């Protein structure tokens, strides 16, 4: 028994017009200041006001939002009493908006209590729209909420099926202004979602197609979207791919590359997509040694190798590295400029955090503590995994 949960997805150029038909009185926009300055939030606000809404903007979401931010946002929500929460942004504002929504509906909860097992009882006060402005996290279609615990320098993987937004507006124009670097980083995050969603132990028949198609689109269109941001076809296909991948992994799970990526992000503030993009091939090679089947199948479907088994799985890892190189992203942690001394000083914490990350639940090959240490070291040095 399992579930497949999805928002209503409005996609393609002009999808933003879906806001014109929203019914309600008060909308709280959750976003960040950069997006306000870029004018993207203004567009959303104007449409909502034309649709008859009173609008308030909470724009204090920082990259990798923490508990304090969502507590502040929830206070604003409680004072304003919106019937729609409208998230505008990348993963950080959308995840923060989900948590703010939960705490607005359930003021007695602490954010860390949001888990996939205890029912929340949302939608008594408000519903949620998510409008992604990056093509990566897929958060507009997922139940996940990643918050940062700054004291412990740890990312908390929270979430609940009820926290899947009601509506996702996937309009490529909202992401057309991304810089090449942001396009590359977020695109690799989407690729990791697609590949891990397809290959993890929790994969399902309902999510497989979404993950495969997302991976196919990303390999095909990410280089063009990075090289030429004005290539609107590439932009649109990447934007769709990110949501497909989000929907795919949210109904399956991510895996070890995300465990490592979360640890690296929390300790060294590496952008999430860059971190998981680096780790992904190493984790594929690690799994390939004992459980290559799903990776080899995906490699065959994507046309990288018909060899099957470990060889097929390794071809997938090779294709991911090749893609990273083509878009100018690092393929090892050393290449990000992190010093070896600094890295090794934090190695125990990285392994500890990754070991207990929620994404570890679905690993097809579960590393021992020592193997995990080695994985982090190989990923630092850029050495293909041979154990």
């Amino acid at each position, binding site marked *: 028994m399992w579930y497949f949960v999805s928002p209503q997805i409005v996609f393609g150029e002009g999808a933003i017009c879906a806001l014109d038909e929203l019914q309600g009185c008060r909308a709280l926009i959750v976003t960040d200041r950069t997006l306000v300055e870029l004018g993207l939030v203004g567009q959303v606000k104007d449409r909502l006001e034309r649709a008859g809404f009173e609008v308030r903007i909470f724009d204090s979401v920082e990259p990798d939002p923490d508990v304090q931010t969502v507590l502040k946002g929830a206070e604003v929500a409680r004072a304003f009493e919106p019937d729609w929460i409208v998230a505008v942004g990348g993963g950080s504002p959308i995840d923060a908006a989900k948590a703010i929504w939960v705490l607005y509906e359930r003021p007695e909860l602490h954010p860390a209590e949001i888990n996939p*097992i205890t029912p929340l009882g949302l939608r008594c006060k408000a519903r949620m729209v998510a409008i992604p402005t990056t093509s990566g996290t897929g958060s507009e279609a997922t139940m996940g909420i990643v918050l940062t615990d700054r004291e412990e320098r740890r990312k908390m993987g*929270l979430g609940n099926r009820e926290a899947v937004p009601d509506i996702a507006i996937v309009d490529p124009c909202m992401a057309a202004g991304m810089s090449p670097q942001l396009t590359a980083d977020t695109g690799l995050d989407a690729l990791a979602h697609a590949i891990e969603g397809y290959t993890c132990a929790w994969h399902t028949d309902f999510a497989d197609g979404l993950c495969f198609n997302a991976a196919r689109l990303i390999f095909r269109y990410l280089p063009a979207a990075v090289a030429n941001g004005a290539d609107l076809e590439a932009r649109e296909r990447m934007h769709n791919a990110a949501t497909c991948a989000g929907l795919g992994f949210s109904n399956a799970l991510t895996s070890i590359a995300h465990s490592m990526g979360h640890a690296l992000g929390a300790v060294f503030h590496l952008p999430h997509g860059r971190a998981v993009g680096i780790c992904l091939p190493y984790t594929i090679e690690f799994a390939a040694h004992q459980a290559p089947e799903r990776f080899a199948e995906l490699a065959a479907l994507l046309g990288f190798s018909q060899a099957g088994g470990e060889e097929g799985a390794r071809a997938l890892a090779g294709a991911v590295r090749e893609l990273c190189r083509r878009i100018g992203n690092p393929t090892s942690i050393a290449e990000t400029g992190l010093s070896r001394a600094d890295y090794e000083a934090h190695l125990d914490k990285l392994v500890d955090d990754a*070991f*207990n990350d929620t994404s*570890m639940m679905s690993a097809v090959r*579960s590393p*021992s*503590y020592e193997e995990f240490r080695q994985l982090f070291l190989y990923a630092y040095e850029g050495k293909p995994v041979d154990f």
Partner: protein
Amino acid sequence: MAFKFPSDEWIKELANQLNASEAYEKAAKDWEGDFIFVVEPDEAYPHTAYLFLGLYHGKSTDAALLSSENEREAEFILRAPYSNWRNVIEGKLDPIQGMMTRKLQVKGNMMKIMRYPKAAKEIVACCALVPTEFAA
């Protein structure tokens, strides 16, 4: 020899396997919290059984078949029909997925359980190492 599930011998053997597992010890090194597993009757098994598993800092401190749920204090109570437990032990039902679909009902602080997913996985891995004899 095989250990009947559920029984005093079975839960004690699980504790032995946990205490021999380096992976469990590492994953649960800060864990504090005892469990009672309640095996509820279904078509495959007509009785109710209570299995106590004491867990502290990566080791099992105690394990026993109880005569009732109230015989010992435990921070967490996991409750499921016999056949669902069998699926968990045989690796057919992921315990976290089981909780998410309410095939395993959990009482206790979920926030704490969700911080130790790897430990949950290692407990299941240790279950697989206990030679188990199930009711027909």
